[in-house]
């Protein structure tokens, strides 16, 4: 039986983490950049598609996000969180900006209509890393209905808390608080799941 080639790069055996890759990207390493794309592009594109919806526009948003990652890799502050969180934070911000700038009020109404039929489940083409997604889903279900609705309307529709308050017919401070409490609960649940 032919032996495995001995001279394989060690790094290929153990995939580099997003944080390691981003550090190499900050020094202009395009190979690391390509690997980082491989690692994070489904998550980035997932955010873009869910918020922007139009596939062509979502692709543009994802491309803008990765160009931001390339340009700003030198500015990444590891004391504020992981590379993955940094990249996905930029992805959501970009996606929301794209929706808000391009959107007519009519398009917005249409999206509200669409939302009625939506669940937390992704589109059929979603690549779901089963375990991880299951725990996110389970944790989302642990939110109170108004927490969940506030968080999802903001995250997926790109609405401001004022717009969510108006849509749900609740006072502004209530919605602000529900968004915060919902995220705290989601984080606590995800963290507990990771530890167990």
């Amino acid at each position: 039986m032919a032996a495995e080639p001995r001279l394989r790069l060690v790094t290929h055996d153990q995939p580099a983490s997003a944080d390691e890759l981003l550090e190499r990207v900050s020094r202009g390493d395009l190979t690391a950049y390509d690997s980082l794309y491989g690692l994070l592009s489904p998550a980035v594109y997932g955010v873009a598609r869910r918020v922007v919806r139009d596939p062509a526009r979502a692709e543009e948003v994802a491309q803008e996000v990765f160009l931001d990652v390339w340009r700003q890799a030198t500015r990444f502050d590891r004391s504020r969180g992981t590379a993955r969180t940094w990249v996905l934070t930029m992805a959501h911000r970009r996606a929301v900006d794209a929706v808000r700038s391009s959107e007519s009020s009519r398009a917005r109404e249409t999206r509200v209509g669409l939302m009625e039929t939506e669940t937390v489940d992704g589109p059929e083409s979603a690549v779901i890393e089963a375990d991880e997604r299951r725990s996110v889903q389970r944790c989302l279900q642990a939110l109170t209905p108004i927490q969940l609705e506030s968080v999802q309307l903001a995250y997926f529709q790109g609405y401001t808390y004022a717009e969510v308050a108006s849509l749900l017919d609740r006072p502004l401070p209530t919605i602000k608080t529900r968004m915060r409490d919902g995220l705290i609960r989601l984080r606590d649940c995800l963290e507990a799941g990771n530890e167990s």
Partner: protein
Amino acid sequence: MSPDIHTLSGAYVLDAIEPAERVAFQAHLAECESCREEVDALRTAAVEIAPPMTPPAALRAKVLAAAERTAQLPPVVTRLEPELPQRRRFSRLLVAAAAVVAFAGGGAFVADQLRDDAPTTITAAQVFASADARVVSKALDGGQVRVAVSRQLDRIAVDGADMPAPPPDHAYQLWLVEDGQATSLSVMEGDATSAVDEIPDAGILAVTVEPSGGSDQPTTEPIFSLDPADV
């Protein structure tokens, strides 16, 4: 700053706030460590909300090609910190200020002044050169912005001469942000690379990149923000 600003962390992490309020909250974050920690913690949860999806195969080549032809930003070396009142630096400033005043003919140097009632006789150069002026500078991508506060003159001046050129058809706009409301102070465009205003009673100064001519409200992230009270 309104007392309930802390509860904005959730809306902020979900990008569910108006640009002006975003600017105000970011300014608040700069001085509230526990708020930063909370925002960082909530982000780890928020980024997991959307399910991943396989992107179109063609995207990978586009992304790589774009990176190949794009320069990366230089790392940030300095952070916002007061300049030491060094004698040498001060006299150099005076020379620069005198040169600028001579070149621009005094009052003409003042950027467009949006407050009609504000006297136009004090120039940015005069504020920087004032004996009691406190000056801070902040490094930006490929340049810096400097701010001088003179309580004697009751003026705050922003010097954008060393700021990187804004993108084509864009300009820097200076805002006063207070209680989530942004008021435009000045559009720093063309030859008007500085701005002068009275020292505000409260609020945060912020600079954003806006389309030429300026915007009614900030439409981008501030590249710089500063509480004049900290200067």
